[in-house]
């Protein structure tokens, strides 16, 4: 079966050199590959059950896939689409982040309330850290010293010292935190809260809250405005925030924390990825099963591309 899969993937392989956005389809157990030039799906690759978080190794020679219902992290050769091996991930891996050392994966195990640290070279678990209930959002500071796990039910951001692999702080955020990112050379941490409808910004040095962003989409009930994934422009002056079932992406001034614009995209927008020069942003729209392409300069949706069912994660392959 695996051989057949590999052959299929090989036969569909795209020419080398084209910039691509890889999208995990949660309900199709596949990955759709979008050509950034033509804005079309050029490959569809079969993967494990319920793929969610995806990320590339630094040199883009490996793709790591959280196959949540297969309880594993799969490692794929993006050139051929072949699954090379699996990593011991702990149960129900949902989201992960690759440490700047390009070796350690920090994985949120949603059902087990732990964060698992896996060495991708020795393919072994090097630590499991107890965190809050239903961990999801994962981030590592640019210097690699701090890892963050957010827990959906405990409503906390858990701060992990990556040297000792132990928690050194827990900070409360609004209801159901989903995604975390370090910005401004690791001095700021942003955490989105889906039910709370906010993004909380922390000062990393003191782990104290320094700001909060609220969202309000005209004509949409506040309950539907649920911030999830977010991404920053190259200069980190602007953040794009996916607002879930409100079907909008918010454009936020990252210095003043003010929302400047809202862009209409597909249904239940979840995560996002930029192209290489960050001129285009690709949003995964779970319910409508498509990916909307946003022109970053014009702050306008330019095209929506049909992918598999319930697209979830997105990653750039230059």
């Amino acid at each position: 079966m695996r051989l057949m899969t590999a052959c299929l993937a090989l036969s569909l392989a795209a020419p080398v050199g084209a910039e691509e956005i890889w999208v995990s389809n949660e309900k199709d157990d596949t990955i759709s590959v979008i050509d950034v030039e033509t804005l079309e799906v050029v490959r569809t690759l079969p993967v494990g059950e319920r793929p969610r978080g995806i990320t590339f190794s630094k040199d883009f020679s490996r793709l790591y896939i959280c196959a949540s219902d297969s309880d594993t992290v799969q490692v794929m050769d993006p050139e051929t689409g072949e699954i090379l091996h699996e990593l011991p991930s702990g149960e129900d891996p949902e989201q992960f982040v690759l440490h700047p050392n390009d070796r350690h994966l920090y994985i949120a195990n949603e059902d087990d309330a732990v964060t698992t640290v896996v060495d991708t070279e020795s393919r072994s678990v090097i630590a499991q850290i107890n965190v809050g209930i239903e961990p999801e959002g994962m981030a590592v500071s640019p210097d690699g010293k701090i890892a963050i796990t957010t827990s959906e039910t405990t409503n906390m951001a858990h701060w992990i010292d990556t040297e000792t692999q132990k928690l050194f702080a827990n900070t409360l955020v609004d209801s159901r935190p989903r995604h975390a990112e370090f910005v401004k050379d690791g001095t700021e941490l942003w955490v989105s809260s889906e039910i709370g409808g906010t993004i909380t910004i922390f000062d990393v040095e003191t782990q104290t809250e320094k700001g909060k962003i609220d969202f309000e989409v005209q004509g949409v009930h506040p309950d539907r405005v649920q911030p999830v994934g977010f991404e920053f422009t190259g200069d980190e002056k602007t953040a794009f925030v996916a607002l879930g079932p409100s079907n909008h992406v918010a454009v936020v001034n990252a210095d003043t924390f003010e929302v400047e614009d809202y862009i209409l995209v597909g249904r239940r927008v979840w995560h996002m990825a930029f192209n290489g020069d960050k001129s285009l942003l690709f949003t995964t729209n779970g319910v409508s099963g498509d990916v909307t392409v946003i022109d970053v300069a014009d702050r306008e949706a330019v095209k929506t591309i049909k992918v598999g069912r319930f697209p979830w994660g997105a990653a750039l392959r230059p």
Partner: protein
Amino acid sequence: MTGGIRAPLVALGAIVTREALRFVRQRERFLAALVRPLVWLLVFAAGFRAALGLSITPPYQTYIQYETYIVPGLCGMIILFNSMQSSLSLVYDREMGSMRLLLTSPLPRWWLLFCRLAASTAISILQVYAFLAIAALYGIKMPAVGYLAALPALVVAGIMLGALGLALSSLIKQLENFAGVMNFVIFPMFFLSSALYPLWKMAESSKLLHDICAVNPFTHAVELIRFALYGEFNAPALGWTLLSGIVFLALALWGYDPARGFIRRKA
């Protein structure tokens, strides 16, 4: 030879100038022509805003809000109402006697009627571009190429609807009957089209309504404009619009033929 071409051109120039002067001098008419679609855009569309987005149908490449969907339909509405207004003025001309004067010209009747058509189409297009400019200020912008590509589509739609107006004007005996045209032609034509709702939406409520909308020439005129505004060409819509235009033109020529048409019966 030159003289042979000169006379029809003089007639064309005179008729277009007369219509243009009439239009320019009646500033209220220009404003009224703009107020109608703007009320639809700013008030009616607000109620159907579809903040969560409309499903993607060609020529749209992504999710849009209702205000964006309705703009090409409102361009069609401007042309439709202007064509009917023009047919109203034809009836007025006939009652006042200036039509008789025009039709006694030695130039062919079809040319004179075509000149009237050209005049009403030119004015419609002017109104459409004024409306599109206001819509752009309101935030509903088309791709730059769309504004240019829309011009031939607007000309074809203008001539088709103008020809319909001409054909109707040959039917209407008195100015008072114009209200009937509003009720029996303009409103059904406008509402039973894709101007306000996509055809798939019509199909959800009634197959019959959908089928009526699908054969309505105004639907095809609107779709021709809609695709052109996004720099795309819709061949079936062009075919239907041209075909309808030819039929309406033939009806108008027949209606205005003193030997056969309605003019004779009215006389």
